[in-house]
């Protein structure tokens, strides 16, 4: 790993909104060109495009047609959400080692809120014929219903988790308002959380992430290559200290209730220790953490399965939420996350961790942060990424 250490050298994103007024292609063009410029490169310098499956309705060749890129290495990463982004980075590392080129572009994005049908959350799940036949006719659809079943089961086994979920939501909203580029514009209180309507009981509207028009991209290279590039802005490089992905066994694609032994088990326990040992860090070394947040209950479970506390201990660990605030021991989703900033298939978490390591997170910056942890839930898949400072 040390020989070809991966580095994030460019990031780019669009606004997060409920109606961008742009096509999916236009959003993607903004995010990808910004990421490539941020890296100090031109589109033609990109040697590889690796994108997680189903996280954009713009195909790599369509983007190449628009931009003059002509990447010799193109691949889909067969994972989704933040896990998919981390898996794409693993593939970039393999491609680097195989001599397939220097610079790799990873992107996601669509106008999910205002227009895109093919990339809508509903359609994503209706692709699956098992779900079409064994869940949809029974009313187990769409996503809020699955996670309502998680919330019910979790609370029955370990106690009322709503105080912890409220704390997660309130914290993230505070961060989203500081961020300045967020779909949500109004403050949120614990009382607001409890007034939030029940969408699918016991799940509340505020337990759900947003649906958003947005796109995001990143450029990864080897640390060695990155160091040799001119850096007119003097921007710090962000080395990847560790990364790993895993899936539950047996794999349970789209079947959110078939994971064993519990429906809410994640594969975090199979990859987080690996990524952390690669990075040579312990939990106490983590200065900032970003975690995939399709629903507040997934964040609670991720905190447990990533080893910050044991299963069933998340309610006590989170408490009133101060541990997860910008001033807390483990600041979580410092940009507002997908619950309050905007949904981006989890790309935003990798970008925010990069900004934190560069010291560019503005009012959300954790002073002196040296180690960032990204936890990437992707249904039966999980990815873990540890970033550092050059």
């Amino acid at each position: 790993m040390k020989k070809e250490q991966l580095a994030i050298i460019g990031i780019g994103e669009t606004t997060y909104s409920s109606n961008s007024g742009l096509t999916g292609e236009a959003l993607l063009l903004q995010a990808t060109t910004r990421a490539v410029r941020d890296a100090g490169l031109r589109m033609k310098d990109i040697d590889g495009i690796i994108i997680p499956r189903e996280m954009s309705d713009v195909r790599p060749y369509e983007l190449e047609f628009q931009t003059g890129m002509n990447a010799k290495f193109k691949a889909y990463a067969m994972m989704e959400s933040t896990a998919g982004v981390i898996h794409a980075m693993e593939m970039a590392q393999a491609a680097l080692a195989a001599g397939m080129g220097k610079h790799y572009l990873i992107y996601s994005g669509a106008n999910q809120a205002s227009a895109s049908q093919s990339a809508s959350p509903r359609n994503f799940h209706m692709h699956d014929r098992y779900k079409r036949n064994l869940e949809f006719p029974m009313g187990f659809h769409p996503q809020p219903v699955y996670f309502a079943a998680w919330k019910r089961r979790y609370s029955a086994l370990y106690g009322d988790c709503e105080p912890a979920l409220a704390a997660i939501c309130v914290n993230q909203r505070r961060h989203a308002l500081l961020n300045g580029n967020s779909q949500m514009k109004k403050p949120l209180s614990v009382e607001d959380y409890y007034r939030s309507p029940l969408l699918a009981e016991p799940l509340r509207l505020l337990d759900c992430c947003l649906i958003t028009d947005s796109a995001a991209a990143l450029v990864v290279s080897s640390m060695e290559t990155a160091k040799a590039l001119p850096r007119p802005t003097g921007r710090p490089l962000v080395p990847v200290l560790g990364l790993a992905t895993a899936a539950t066994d047996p794999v349970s694609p789209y079947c959110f209730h078939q994971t064993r032994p519990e429906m809410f088990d994640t594969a975090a326990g199979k990859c987080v220790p690996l990524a952390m040992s690669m990075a040579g860090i312990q939990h106490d070394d983590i200065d900032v953490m970003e975690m995939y947040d399709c629903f507040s209950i997934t964040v609670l479970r991720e905190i447990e399965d990533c080893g910050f506390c044991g299963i069933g201990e998340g309610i006590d660990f989170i408490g009133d939420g101060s541990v997860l605030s910008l001033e807390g021991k483990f600041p979580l989703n410092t940009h507002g996350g997908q619950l309050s900033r905007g949904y981006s298939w989890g790309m935003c978490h990798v970008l925010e961790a990069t900004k934190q390591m560069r010291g560019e997170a503005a009012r959300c910056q954790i002073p002196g942060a040296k180690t960032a942890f990204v936890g990437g839930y992707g249904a039966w898949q999980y990815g873990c990424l540890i970033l550092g400072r050059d």
Partner: protein
Amino acid sequence: MADELSLLPEHDWPVLQPFWEAANRGELVFPRCKHCGTWHWYPTYMCRECEGELEWVSVAPHGTLYSWVVVRRALVAEYREKVPYIVALLEIDDAPGVRFVLNTTDMSCEKKLYIGAKMQIVFERLSDAINMPRCLLAEPI
């Protein structure tokens, strides 16, 4: 809004055809490995443990409540006429490892549900081909 889809399952999808054929006779069947005896749900083409052949085995229509969700508002257009309903995940007593999704529109059981509650599976005929499993609370409180 996307085009509305039929809420009827595809009775002739080969992967599930034996399930719906049995349901038509009022029988509940799940796939089990002939070789190692592992139950599988959702159905696969072969045993994921030992690669053995699967067979559909009839079980008693009894399950234990694993989790449930009360849906009062239709989150998609197809459920407009269906709400309110309770969607339940049952662990099938005779088929360890099978977690089965089904629902009931009997809202009178709502306050009596708890994880571990004993549930009964009954069938409701929706079409010539589909006899849909539904659940009922089996035990009085």
